[in-house]
């Protein structure tokens, strides 16, 4: 006979205000099988938990329903308490009276009635629960970090420092990401490359880190602790083992007019190239699209010149399989393409540039050696207009969200320009100044108060190029209540930070969700900011949301802590929510085998004593099964069931709703 205990939580006023908890407890007491029914102010508090433990011991309960908050909040708390009192933790269920009832309804009688329903359903379910035992799985103590920007570098270094192996996968020829392209960085104005390159070098030389640049993730199989990843190493046409990075090849390559991605298309590079002088690894690759040897079979200069015979035109992509226990996604961001803004010239005005282009103009290693010169004619601009929120906070043509970093980098740009061009005029159009970090507001104020940037509060409506070459910027000064028109020589758009194009593919491979904009979703916006819905996959940096360097680094280190925590034990306990086959009922139609997304359903031969196969049936590999239940729904012989969500339990729930 079932002996069920029901515990109704008031959550202070959170539930109690709209749900009459005492009444729910009284109603629940009348349900068949219920032997105790109590309500209490805070069930998750120590006395609350003690109440449950006492009841389990004194009343010899066979099942418990805690009617409180969402199981996503406290299910583990209460299951642990049950276990401490000697009850199998899987004999406890939660009814969600807070998130699904008291917080979403106002009418007290209606909410109370619904609360009773929710309890009834769970009482009927829990009567049919079975004792379950966690599943142990092995953990492969190697992590893969995808993306070699500052986020990926930091996460890799911290995991390596914790004594575990890391594979750092970067799709471009060098690690460094966007930070390597920045001139100086807010809020301290220190040189970006000066603080970044030591870390790049450290990552490359750390014995625990394997760098895989010019590589991309092709497939991810398996699950937490046991991922199997296929990585495509793209053909470099340069053997990194032989190459010393002497650079003779790229100085001699005749294809020199290729716009450099690293320089935001303002500079040029050759067909065999390293993206920038401090690249790590400092070994070139051949860009197969532009090398005339690879496209037309004509040239071969680099092979002739190379003192180490490192060039190999026959090089092919290579697929490598690795086993890892955890994955960190750190694939970063892109800038929004402002050619969608017809009113700002639709991308056709060459002197209307984006933030990265300005960074490269301001950078000592950039195409103008750090002098601010405009792209059209190389002149030093006398008036530069900076436009914030370009493509951000624009639900019509751009992104509805705030990109978070552009207020700061625009202030930095205005400052850098004023430091470099003393008689120049810097005008910043802004809507709000969002500078909520340590030293951030001081930084933007400095741009205005000491560095002479003219801040104008208002959005710009139009930019066009007058016949005399001046860019006419029509904006508004909403504080003064007037339209303003500025004659500019250069316009810098603070384009929105957007997710990488095609980033959904990687997310889907890993089972990670992404929001409507394409940023990867964390498991909880406040309390689990680096975990994802996929166990064992973590997020660092701007792939999760727009972020500056300090936030990126903090999140990357948090990822490392999570990974090291996971690797601390050799075995991992997993929820025992898995499917089971009843061999007597299975007719081996293989429907389940064909549908299981994890390949967890397999053939099993049943043999007699002599070892002859008498029957083949399906079997579930607990290690692989993730408990989705697809096989259960597909099996026409009712031969599979799912622990924790059995047909019996669900039919009981439905029946209770009658």
């Amino acid at each position, binding site marked *: 006979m079932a002996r069920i205990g029901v515990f109704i939580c008031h959550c202070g006023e959170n539930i109690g205000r709209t749900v009459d908890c005492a009444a729910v407890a009284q109603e629940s007491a009348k349900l068949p099988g219920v032997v105790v029914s109590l309500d209490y102010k805070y069930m998750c508090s120590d006395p609350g938990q003690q109440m449950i433990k006492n009841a389990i011991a004194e009343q010899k309960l066979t099942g418990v329903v805690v009617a409180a908050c969402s199981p996503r909040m406290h299910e583990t708390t209460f299951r642990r308490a049950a276990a401490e009192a000697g009850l199998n933790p899987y004999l406890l269920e939660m009814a969600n009276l807070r998130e699904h009832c008291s917080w979403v309804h106002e009418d007290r009688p209606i909410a109370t009635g619904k609360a009773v329903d929710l309890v009834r359903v769970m009482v009927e379910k829990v009567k049919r629960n079975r004792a379950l035992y966690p599943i142990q799985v092995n953990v492969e103590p190697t992590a893969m970090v995808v993306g070699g920007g500052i986020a990926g570098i930091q996460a890799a270094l911290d995991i390596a420092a914790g004594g575990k192996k890391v594979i750092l996968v970067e799709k471009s020829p060098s690690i460094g990401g966007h930070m390597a392209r920045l001139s100086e960085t807010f809020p301290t104005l220190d040189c970006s490359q000066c603080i970044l390159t030591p870390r790049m070098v450290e990552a490359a030389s750390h014995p625990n880190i394997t760098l895989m640049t010019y590589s991309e993730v092709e497939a991810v199989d398996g699950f937490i602790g046991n991922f199997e990843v296929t990585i495509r190493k793209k053909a470099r046409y340069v053997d990194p083992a032989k190459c010393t990075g002497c650079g003779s090849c790229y100085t001699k390559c005749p294809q020199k007019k290729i716009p450099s991605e690293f320089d935001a298309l303002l500079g040029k590079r050759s067909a065999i190239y390293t993206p920038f002088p401090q690249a790590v690894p400092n070994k070139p690759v051949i860009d197969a699209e532009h090398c005339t040897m690879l496209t037309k079979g004509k040239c071969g200069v680099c092979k002739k010149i190379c003192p180490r015979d490192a060039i190999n035109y026959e090089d092919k992509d290579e697929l490598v399989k690795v086993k890892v226990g955890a994955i960190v996604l750190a694939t970063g961001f892109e800038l929004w393409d402002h050619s969608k803004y017809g009113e700002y010239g639709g991308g056709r005005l060459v002197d209307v540039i984006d933030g990265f282009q300005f960074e490269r103009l301001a950078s000592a290693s950039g195409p103008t050696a750090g002098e601010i010169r405009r792209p059209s004619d190389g002149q030093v601009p006398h008036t530069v207009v900076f436009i914030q929120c370009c493509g951000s*906070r624009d639900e019509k043509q*751009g992104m509805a969200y705030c990109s978070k970093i552009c207020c700061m980098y625009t202030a930095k740009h205005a400052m850098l320009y004023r430091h470099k061009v003393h008689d120049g005029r810097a005008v910043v159009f802004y*809507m709000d100044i969002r500078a909520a970090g340590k030293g951030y507001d001081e930084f933007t104020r400095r741009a205005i108060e000491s560095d002479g940037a003219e801040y104008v509060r*208002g959005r710009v*409506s139009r930019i066009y190029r007058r016949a005399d070459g001046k860019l006419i910027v029509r904006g508004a000064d*909403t504080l003064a209540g007037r339209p303003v028109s500025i004659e500019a020589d250069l316009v810098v758009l603070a384009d929105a930070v957007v997710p990488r194009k095609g980033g959904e593919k990687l997310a889907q491979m890993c089972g990670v969700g992404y929001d409507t904009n394409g940023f990867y979703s964390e498991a909880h916006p406040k309390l689990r900011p680096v975990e994802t819905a996929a166990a064992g996959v973590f997020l660092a940096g701007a792939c999760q949301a727009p972020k500056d360097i300090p936030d990126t680094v903090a999140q990357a280190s948090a990822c490392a802590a999570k990974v090291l925590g996971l690797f601390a034990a050799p075995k991992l306990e997993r929820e025992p929510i898995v499917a089971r086959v009843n061999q007597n009922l299975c007719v081996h139609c293989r429907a389940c085998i064909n549908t299981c997304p994890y390949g967890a359903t397999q053939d099993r031969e049943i043999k007699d004593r002599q070892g002859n196969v008498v029957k083949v049936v399906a079997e579930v590999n607990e290690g692989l099964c993730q408990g989705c239940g697809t096989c259960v729904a597909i099996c026409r012989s009712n031969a599979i069931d799912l622990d924790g969500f059995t047909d019996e339990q669900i039919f009981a729930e439905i029946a209770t709703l009658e």
Partner: protein
Amino acid sequence: MSHTQQSELGARIAEQTGMNVLECYQCGKCTAGCPMAKYMDLTPSQVMRLCQMSDEGAKEQVLRSGAIWTCAGCLTCTQRCPKQLDPAAAMDVLRELSNREKMTSPQRRKILAFHKAFLTTVRKTGRMSEFPLVRRYKISSRDFFSDVLLAPLMVAKGKLGFKAHKIKGRSQIKTIFQTCADLARK
């Protein structure tokens, strides 16, 4: 179940156009692009702002402004508003109200006079013709002398219709005007 609380003007705009003025975040892009803004006593974004406020002073300021009459209805603001609002349509609602509540700015009397002269011509004949319109406008606006030099030229070019075109369905038109006027009074 929305908890939005609209001002009187905001509610009227919502009713007539479906727009929620509270969505305006005062970016000023409408003002920035408005060709007429420099002739306005309130900028388009200020007009939007005042419609968000529920005090009587705000309502007065908007309905007595010259700005609402200075708007040319060019839709530049609407086209570019990042919040997909329609300030041009808000202006329509406000003008109608300003006229009905007899609050029209004296500075923009000429514009109102022109519109009224136009509609009177249409009400009487069913169509607009330049000469009757101009005559009526000049009398009511007392703006007799501007453009007098243009008139003979227009005549020479065959561009100034002297005679009113009278359509057959004039009584229908009168009824339409009357019904709409009655509706407005409600």
